[in-house]
């Protein structure tokens, strides 16, 4: 038998007391960080450790020079947005509306944000469902605000801290928004399904949905002008599910933006 130092397992009492101390400390932190003082301390910690997260993400995503393919993809996105605006304009002229609804967003209503984290099951392969931005309540970010890239909806703010915020992407399970077909005006609800797909549901059978139609936000603004503006592009229909025996029809919608290629997005501030 080889000589060596052997230790008996730690005494149970020490384990339990250490656990209880840190358990109580966790509860104290849980309560403390809901207070303004705790928030400030959290903001200080955030500003200290956030650069490491940002550096890790930049290391992974890389400083990419725009390739020809990416330039064409951006151009394609811009054309889709312009097409949605054009279709909306045509509908309004056709229906003799006297109010011209401008879907473009003025720059002073946009808060620029750098992406510091995009989490997927397998980075680079799985389609992400959330992302972390480096702006928070101190920069005017609030829960419920829409996040866009080139006038295309990317997601919505769900959690905010002093210096950072979390975004649920449009394809995440549980994401929902009222939407309409930009070509036919058919109304429905966009629901994230996970796996990079959205479903436009609760569309009346009498309405028309066509493949390759653009789906845009219907808009839900209150009297103060806050909320989600209309006619922001959500995605494009890839298939329609319509059965005469059902009450409603639905359509599969894919987003026009590959969020894993983004480094900067904009938060829509309607205040």
């Amino acid at each position, binding site marked *: 038998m080889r000589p060596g130092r052997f230790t008996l397992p730690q005494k149970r009492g020490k384990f339990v007391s250490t656990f209880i101390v840190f358990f109580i400390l966790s*509860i104290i932190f*849980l309560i403390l960080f809901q207070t303004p003082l*705790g928030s400030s301390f959290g903001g200080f910690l955030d500003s200290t450790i*956030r650069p490491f997260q940002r550096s890790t993400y930049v290391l992974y995503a890389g400083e990419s020079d725009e390739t020809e393919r990416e330039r064409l993809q951006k151009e394609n996105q811009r054309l889709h947005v312009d097409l949605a605006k054009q279709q909306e304009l045509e509908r309004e002229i056709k229906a003799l509306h006297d109010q011209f609804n401008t879907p473009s967003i003025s720059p002073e209503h946009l808060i620029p944000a750098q992406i510091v*984290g995009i989490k997927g099951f397998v980075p680079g392969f799985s389609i992400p469902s959330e992302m972390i931005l480096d702006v928070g309540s101190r920069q005017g970010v609030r829960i419920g605000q829409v996040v866009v890239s080139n006038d295309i909806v990317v997601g919505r703010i769900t959690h905010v801290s002093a210096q950072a915020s979390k975004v649920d992407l449009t394809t*995440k399970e549980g994401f929902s928004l009222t939407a309409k077909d930009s070509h036919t005006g058919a109304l429905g609800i966009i629901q994230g399904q996970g796996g990079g797909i959205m479903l436009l549901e609760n569309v009346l059978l009498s309405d028309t949905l066509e493949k390759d139609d653009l789906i845009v936000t219907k808009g839900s603004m209150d009297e103060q002008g806050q909320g989600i503006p209309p006619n922001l592009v959500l995605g494009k229909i890839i298939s329609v599910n319509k059965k005469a025996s059902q009450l409603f029809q639905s359509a599969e919608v894919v987003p026009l933006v590959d969020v894993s290629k983004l480094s900067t997005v904009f938060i829509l501030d309607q205040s």
Partner: protein
Amino acid sequence: MVLFTFVLLFILALLLESTLTTVPLVLLALLCLAVARKKTWIFPLAFFSGILLDILLVRVVGLTSLFFLVYLFFVLLYDRKYEIRTLPFIMVSAFVGTLLYGVLFSLPMLFIQAIISSFVAGGVFMIFTRTTGVRDSKGFQRV
């Protein structure tokens, strides 16, 4: 040197989980450390890593720490009844832990992640025990 390497790997797990992946790497690292070492410092480590994760992932601060602490406590409770420093125990604990973590924090593809996590934890545990000379012989460890 080994300890320094594992500290670096722990920090890497923290950064990867906060930036790129939904796999609970920090939970798996804590599980392997707790079972391999059975020391009380696992609790402060779990507490501080939970706080950091909550800040980086914009969650309610303190929630992840609470989960880590309770989870590790229950894992170490099994030390009384079973020999926990075994590969099957690590893999089952990682599977259950990931399921619970995923339900609490709404992880996608939960079942698959739990399976992957159990294999990752098993691999990490095997590497850790072989590089640090920890033996699982009936409750005694050679340090």
